[in-house]
């Protein structure tokens, strides 16, 4: 506790460049979050740490910007009829439990193996989960794109049909996004896993959104919008926990929020212009790119734990810089795809409107 208090007192000085940097990263993170329901956090925490913000303060401040951002994003997307509030709350509550358990595991690993052990665990979780889930999501989006059936309604997976067919009396709840009744015994572990991932790599949505799509059978647009409700529930609880220890640097959180609210509104508007498979495409591309960023750091932590030959200082520096650059690139690439798809959607709508007006006149 003494360390925590010491760390809390260690809030950084803010200058114009720092404020501009946080605002821009916040904007890009918000843009991606508004579109796919999560993301951005994996860059924001290291971005703050690169400014000299202590790790725990960075995590706490990131979380304190996340829940109000998710709230605004969820409200915006609810206007478009994309949010399933009930599913979001049901998953969010079990995700909260997952966050607490995930944080507990983190603490134990840190106690047993130190900072390098904890970092290795986080990076390994990143690599394994992003490789499996990210690879699957990207493959699915790519298949849809190549098939040319991008306008067709998304098919519910066989797994989701099976989940929807199971009737466990006393546990069945109707969810409008699924248009079916499913047992909460299926949603609890999914929410829990989402929370555990959020506590480990800061982006629970990388499990939450794909599980809503492929395991429960929600359409991509509704899954990504509902993830914002989960992020709000998780973020609010997490922020309060960190704030109880005085770890939230509200200045950092609110400056990032300033940029991210511009971004999340734009990302949410973007979802109304694109075909559903684009959600999967952006998510898959970001996940697979981030995977390479974290994989580069694995040898650094292995070397610190003396599990492999010690790496030279210059090699470590190069690996760290490259990893950070790839992470920024992943976010920028996601934002670029979102903006491009949105731009194309707006243009084609304008053309359609002009055509319709001409027809009416004729």
């Amino acid at each position, binding site marked *: 506790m003494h360390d925590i*208090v010491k760390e*809390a*007192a260690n*809030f950084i000085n*803010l200058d114009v460049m720092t404020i501009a940097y946080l605002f821009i990263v916040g904007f890009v993170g918000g843009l991606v979050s508004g579109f796919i329901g999560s993301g951005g956090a994996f860059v924001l925490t290291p971005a703050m740490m690169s400014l000299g913000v202590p790790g725990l303060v960075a995590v706490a401040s990131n979380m*304190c*910007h996340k*829940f*109000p*951002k998710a*709230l*605004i994003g969820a*409200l*915006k997307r609810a*206007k*478009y009829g994309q949010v399933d509030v009930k599913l979001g709350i049901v998953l969010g509550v079990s995700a909260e439990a997952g966050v607490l358990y995930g944080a507990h595991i983190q603490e134990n690993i840190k106690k047993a193996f130190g900072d390098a052990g904890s970092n290795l665990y986080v990076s390994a979780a990143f690599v394994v989960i992003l490789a499996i889930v990210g690879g699957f999501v990207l493959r699915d989006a790519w298949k849809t794109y190549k098939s040319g059936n991008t306008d067709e309604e998304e098919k519910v997976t066989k797994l989701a049909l099976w989940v929807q067919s199971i009737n466990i009396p006393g546990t069945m709840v109707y969810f409008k996004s699924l248009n079916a009744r499913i047992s909460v015994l299926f949603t609890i572990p999914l929410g829990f896993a989402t929370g555990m991932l959020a506590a480990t790599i800061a982006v629970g949505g990388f499990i939450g959104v794909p599980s809503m799509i492929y395991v429960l059978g929600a359409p991509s647009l509704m899954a990504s919008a509902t993830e914002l409700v989960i992020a709000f529930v998780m973020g*609010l609880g997490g*922020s*309060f926990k960190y*704030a*109880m*220890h*005085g*770890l*939230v*640097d*509200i*200045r950092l*959180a*609110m*400056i990032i*929020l*300033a940029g991210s*609210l*511009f971004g999340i*509104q*734009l990302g949410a*508007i973007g979802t*109304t*212009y694109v075909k559903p498979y684009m959600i999967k495409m952006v998510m898959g591309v970001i996940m697979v790119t981030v995977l390479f960023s974290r994989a580069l750091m694995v040898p650094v932590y292995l070397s610190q734990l003396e599990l492999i030959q010690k790496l030279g200082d210059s090699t470590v520096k190069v690996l760290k810089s490259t990893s950070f650059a790839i992470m920024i690139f992943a976010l920028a690439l996601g934002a670029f795809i979102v903006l491009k798809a949105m731009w194309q*959607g*707006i243009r084609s*709508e304008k053309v*359609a*409107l002009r055509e*319709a*007006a001409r027809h*009416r006149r004729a």
Partner: protein
Amino acid sequence: MSEENKTTKKKPYAKMMFMGIISIALYVILLLKQDIINKYFALGGMYAFLPIATAFIFSFVHGLFTGNFWTVMGIEAARKKKEIK
């Protein structure tokens, strides 16, 4: 949406300006009074309500401002396909 509706629909300039001014004022206070804010917000315990309440207030004000900002810029959600036809 009919042509008439389209042309008569006003952009929320006044709302954007109003919320924008409040939002800027909040950020100015946050940065000018950061020493006092940091002192109390980092106390922990029941003082945890301070950052949480601040986050809600900022999100409400700045959220309304940014929403109106994009509307004024002409970036709005797609109209339903059936409306276009």
